[in-house]
């Protein structure tokens, strides 16, 4: 299945782009998406990453659907 991914902050540098599409296995969880990111891109393993869908932070075990739009967020640094 295909998911549309938008990254923010330093994650854009790691992804080489602010928006990418990934082919992921059916039934993958939010935690699985984080593992996919850390396996395929040079992201520091200790970097905490939040995943947002429909303006809501996903819990680790939430299931990702085909054609989902996900937002990948490193630690925030506003102000």
């Amino acid at each position, binding site marked *: 299945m295909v998911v549309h991914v938008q990254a923010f*902050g*330093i994650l854009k540098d790691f992804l080489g782009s602010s928006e990418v599409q990934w082919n992921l296995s059916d039934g993958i969880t939010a935690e699985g998406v984080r593992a996919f990111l850390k396996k395929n891109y040079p992201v520091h393993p200790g970097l905490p990453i939040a995943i*947002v869908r429909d303006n809501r932070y996903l819990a680790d075990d939430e299931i990702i659907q085909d054609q989902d739009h996900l937002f990948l967020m*490193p*630690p*925030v640094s*506003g*102000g």
Partner: protein
Amino acid sequence: MKVHISISEAPASYNEIMDFLKSDHAGAIALFEGVVRSDVLDNGESVTHLFYEAHVPMVHAETSLLVEQMRQHCDVYAIFFHHLLGNVAVGQTSIWLGIAAQHRKEAFEAQTWFLNQFKQRVPIWKKELGDQTQQWVVPHE
């Protein structure tokens, strides 16, 4: 409680903030402005600008949630929050937080509580820019 939350490329104006916050019962108005500092980057250069980006809908959602939580334990009349997006030069304000309350104690408590939470939770990211380099700011957890 009156609530103003905004994020854009245009600065907030003092008159707009005070018009929003003032009332006959608010004896204390506390306005915080976060200003871009000319910090020194890893390569020894000085910061000339910060660049801010955000997930704008989530900024509104998370900030509204913060305000709801704040009103559980802080007794304030009004809150005005504005954050800039894009490039902001050294010496310019990037964040405005104004609180109106009956007395200063409540206003200061609300300001401190809100900013501590904001810094951890609201999805805005900044990059430090010097003449030669740029680097994202990544807080340590």
